[in-house]
């Protein structure tokens, strides 16, 4: 199972007079892990929603393996900041939604992949926030998707659970090799996970960096270098602002 190529050309999105994305150009090859960082309102989440087919672009083209995005691609999955589990379905039944053609054995295997094999018959309301996101991850991956979009899925978790989830996502990505796009405001998370990081500013790509670090990544001086470069870009404008006052 491999990922999908993504080709975005001249992509624009406008809400009334507000221009959220401006003629975006982006190419990703199969199985690449891209992180998009930026301040709130820079258009990064909108980009994901366009790619997922949840919203229509104002202009431009998006090709997944050469095919124009038209509605929700069957091999695409998206994870949100909230887990969005059905509260009236047990954990296993929730995962089943992501893999209708999968056998019960495959469903429970995907649950043990995220380390929750003993929670299969629980209601989601009995799980912690991190456990819910792990179930959501199992649901997203059980159907062997070719592209996984992550819209700040770890934003609401505590620091330790976040690190665990990052490791889990990395491990499953290395195993299944789907193309992945992570939207986050956490620079360190982006450097931990991504092959390539782009910085969004006002709907445009302000920076595009390839992260050349061996996995699993440790927070050494090389790691800090990438972090510093991206933070400088993100903070740059405000710093100039402060000095000029």
């Amino acid at each position: 199972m491999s990922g999908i190529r993504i080709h975005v050309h001249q992509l624009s999105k406008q809400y009334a007079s507000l221009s959220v994305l401006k003629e975006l150009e982006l190419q990703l090859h199969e199985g690449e892990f891209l992180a998009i960082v930026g301040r709130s309102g820079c258009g990064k989440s909108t980009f994901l929603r366009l790619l997922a087919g949840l919203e229509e672009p104002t202009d431009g083209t998006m090709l997944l393996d050469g095919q124009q995005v038209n509605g929700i691609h069957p091999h695409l999955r998206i994870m949100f900041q909230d887990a969005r589990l059905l509260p009236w379905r047990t954990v296993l039944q929730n995962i089943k939604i992501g893999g209708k053609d999968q056998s019960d054995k495959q469903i429970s295997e995907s649950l043990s992949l995220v380390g929750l094999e003993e929670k299969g018959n629980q209601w989601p309301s009995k799980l912690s926030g991190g456990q819910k996101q792990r179930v959501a991850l199992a649901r997203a991956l059980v159907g062997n998707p070719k592209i996984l979009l992550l819209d700040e899925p770890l934003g609401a978790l505590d620091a330790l659970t976040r690190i665990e989830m990052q490791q889990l996502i990395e491990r499953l990505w290395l195993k299944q090799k789907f193309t992945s796009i992570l939207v986050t405001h956490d620079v360190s998370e982006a450097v931990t996970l991504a092959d390539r990081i782009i910085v969004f500013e006002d709907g445009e790509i302000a920076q595009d960096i390839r992260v050349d670090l061996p996995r699993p990544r440790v927070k050494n001086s090389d790691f800090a270098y990438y972090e510093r470069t991206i933070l400088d870009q993100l903070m740059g404008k405000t710093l100039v602002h402060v000095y000029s006052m």
Partner: protein
Amino acid sequence: MQQSWSVNTMIKKRLLFSFSSLIVWILPILFLIGWQLIGRADTLPTPLQVLEGAKRLYLDGTLLDAIWISTKRAFVGFFIGGSIGFLLGLLNGLSPLSSRLLDTSIQMIRTIPHLALIPLVILWFGVEESGKLFLVALGVAFPIYLNTYHGIRNVDRGLMEMGKVYGLKGISLFRQIILPGALPSILVGIRYALGIMWMSLIVAETIASDSGIGYMATSAREFMQMDIVLLTIILYAFLGKFSDFVATVLERKLLGWHPSFSKLEDS
């Protein structure tokens, strides 16, 4: 040692449990005792006299007949009105066009107290069965309509979006996400409607009827049978409590996933 200790705590727990379940009954029992002490046959028959009246009516068959007729009326009316309210709620909840067309008019009709229609109902239907069913159905339809409609409109948008990402649409989206999401609200509507059902029926039976519990009350009034009048009031109370019990069981069964309905022991 260990074992006798655990048996001891078990007994203590049992006692504590039976005491806490007894607590509920203290006030009703005191009330009954007080009533028995101050009661007088001509103004306020005692509980025992009411029981005797009940036995008399039971033996000549009128009691069970009346209960059966009233219960049947109540639930047939509930079924008709509930179905109409539920279907309209579904339609308007799912289709914005239909909601634009119908909702304002339904809300306008809703503001009329349905019991105000009694003179009209008597003129239309006389003391026929259909008049009472009409009143019950009318009273029941609105709470169920309203709660179904709002239940569907308030289904979590995030869950709907998730469903679409996973390829759910049409019937399967409705069955897996919309209906279960609206169910807590629909059940609140049903519970509320059950109360209105009995109220409408009592009024309709008291004013225009030749059978049922309400008729039993009016004819007992004419013959000054105070014990029977009190009996009918108690009967209505029991029937109301019974339908509330049914609603609670329904909630427990259907909303087991809901944190506020789930039982403690299954955690």
